[in-house]
């Protein structure tokens, strides 16, 4: 039996499909309920009740929304570039799902435990901008185009600081494998060490990278109607929506793997499985997304660019050099013999 799944082509294929489903189904259910969580959290912040009509405590609301959105008509504007218009939402959603392949959910539990896991995640997250640019261009609408332009500049700018954050973490771990990153945090989570400023930079950059408030300029509903997805309806809109929330969960997962110890249990509570701890940390970071959304007004575009290039870039570069210097000075630089 074991031989069938490790050596037979069909066995490997079946195993891969099963692994993919085992990751994607919880992620998609989590995504559906993160919309519910967001609405409830925002309602609590604003002293409202939030969705409470469909099912007990409104728990069936995400499914009601899904049914509504699936049964609507998909409209393709007359002037749109049809194939690209339909490609963009699929691209956004597929990219958001692809990144999950390397996230370790427990010790050595990842669909693909690859050596360059961090680089893979960085590569996938840097591709997210294409869905938005293509959507903006293919819609042939000025609001969509403006949203796409803003988002291209914004996501490229904040990727730079996220890149430096990743490099600093790699420096402390000495490996590009995400499982090694989590293992290195068995005593101290990186968020509570010298890397704390990088954790803050990461938290803010992750908001910009997922186009969430207060950096939701690509959507900017008060100026650009709905930004890059202004022309989308029904299923194609739903894919953007799914992609956005899946990306948020993914960035939360990345944040917990890099800084909050991934599947490591806090306070020695190791009898609770690691999967649960990772999920709990993801929930905390997701709450951070909603908390920020309820608290801060939207940034103006020049302020956003200033923050990215004039504050985060020098800060993360300086902290990278400081971290390298500290590790070298104390002789704690992780080295493996070649």
């Amino acid at each position: 039996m074991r031989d069938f799944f490790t050596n037979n082509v069909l066995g490997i294929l079946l195993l891969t499909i099963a692994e993919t489903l085992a990751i994607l189904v919880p992620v998609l259910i989590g995504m559906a309920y993160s919309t519910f969580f967001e609405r409830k959290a925002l309602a609590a912040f604003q002293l409202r009740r939030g969705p409470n009509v469909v099912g007990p405590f409104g728990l069936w609301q995400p499914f009601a929304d899904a049914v509504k959105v699936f049964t609507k008509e998909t409209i393709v504007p007359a002037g749109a570039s049809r194939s690209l218009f339909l490609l963009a939402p699929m691209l956004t959603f597929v990219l958001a799902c692809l990144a999950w392949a390397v996230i370790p959910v427990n010790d050595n539990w990842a669909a693909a435990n690859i050596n360059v896991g961090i680089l893979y995640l960085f590569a996938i997250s840097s591709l997210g901008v294409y869905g938005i640019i293509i959507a903006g261009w293919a819609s042939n609408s000025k609001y969509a185009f403006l949203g796409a332009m803003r988002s291209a500049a914004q996501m490229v700018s904040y990727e730079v600081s996220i890149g430096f954050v990743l490099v600093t973490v790699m420096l402390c771990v000495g490996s590009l494998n995400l499982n090694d990153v989590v293992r290195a945090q068995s005593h101290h989570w990186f968020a509570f060490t010298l890397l704390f400023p990088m954790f803050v930079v990461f938290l803010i950059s992750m908001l910009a990278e997922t186009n969430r408030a207060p950096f939701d300029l690509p959507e900017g509903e008060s100026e650009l109607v709905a930004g890059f997805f202004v022309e989308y309806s029904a299923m194609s809109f739903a894919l953007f929506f799914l992609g956005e929330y899946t990306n948020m969960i993914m960035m939360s997962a990345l944040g917990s793997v890099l800084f909050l110890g991934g599947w490591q249990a806090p306070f020695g509570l190791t009898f609770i499985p690691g999967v649960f701890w990772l999920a709990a940390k993801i929930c905390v970071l997701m709450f951070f997304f909603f908390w920020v959304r309820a608290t801060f007004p939207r940034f103006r575009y020049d302020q956003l660019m200033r923050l990215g290039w004039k504050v985060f870039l020098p800060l993360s570069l300086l902290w990278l050099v400081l971290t390298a210097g500290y590790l070298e000075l104390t002789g704690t630089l992780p080295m493996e013999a070649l």
Partner: protein
Amino acid sequence: MIVAVAFYVFSAILLGSAAMVVTSRNPVHSVLFLILAFFNAAALFLIAGAEFLAMILVIVYVGAVAVLFLFVVMMLDVDFTALREGFQRYAPVGATVGVVLFFELASVLLGWRMSGDVSAAVLTRLPSHVQNTRAIGQVLYTDYFLLFQLSGLILLVAMIGAIVLTHRGRHTSKRQNITRQQERRVDETLQVVTVRSGAGIRELGLYRPIPVGREPVLAAPATTEVSTIVAQDQ
């Protein structure tokens, strides 16, 4: 077997999309095919076992360079009829260049012999336990350290040069100085004035000169006493 199939699939898509980059009429489609070509090149790197190069190719070329390409190409307003205007006039030049290139390529391809086993041609083989990220680092930061740093320096100089050449110090746009804004206090910014009934801004000493030719239209004197908050200019 699977690896061979994957190699031919990725190579075929790579060549096909590279051809489409040149032949497609819409420049935006060209850039998108270029991105597809980059992707398949990255997949070929992965098959060759060069995972670090594959990821860097995606991050640098697809994630950054091609985004800027796409950005620029989308902003262009290309008129295809205008592009076709000089076609007949320039056709002989183009044909000559094409013929020369064709013969050059043909002379290379005709003298090309396929080697049986590519892996036999590898100069230095990595020990199986060494990751190629580490191996590249070991070479780049030891033997080729000077060249590596110099190329970085050249790129930095080129970047600074581009910024200096294109930067125009125009001061026509309104700028914010965020430090100065945050240092402002209420008593520097706001002034609470008790306005006498019927008094204008001249009597209160709040009159600011108005450009000549645009005399203010004085409103009818107010009958009640109002307390006004006047915002001062910075």
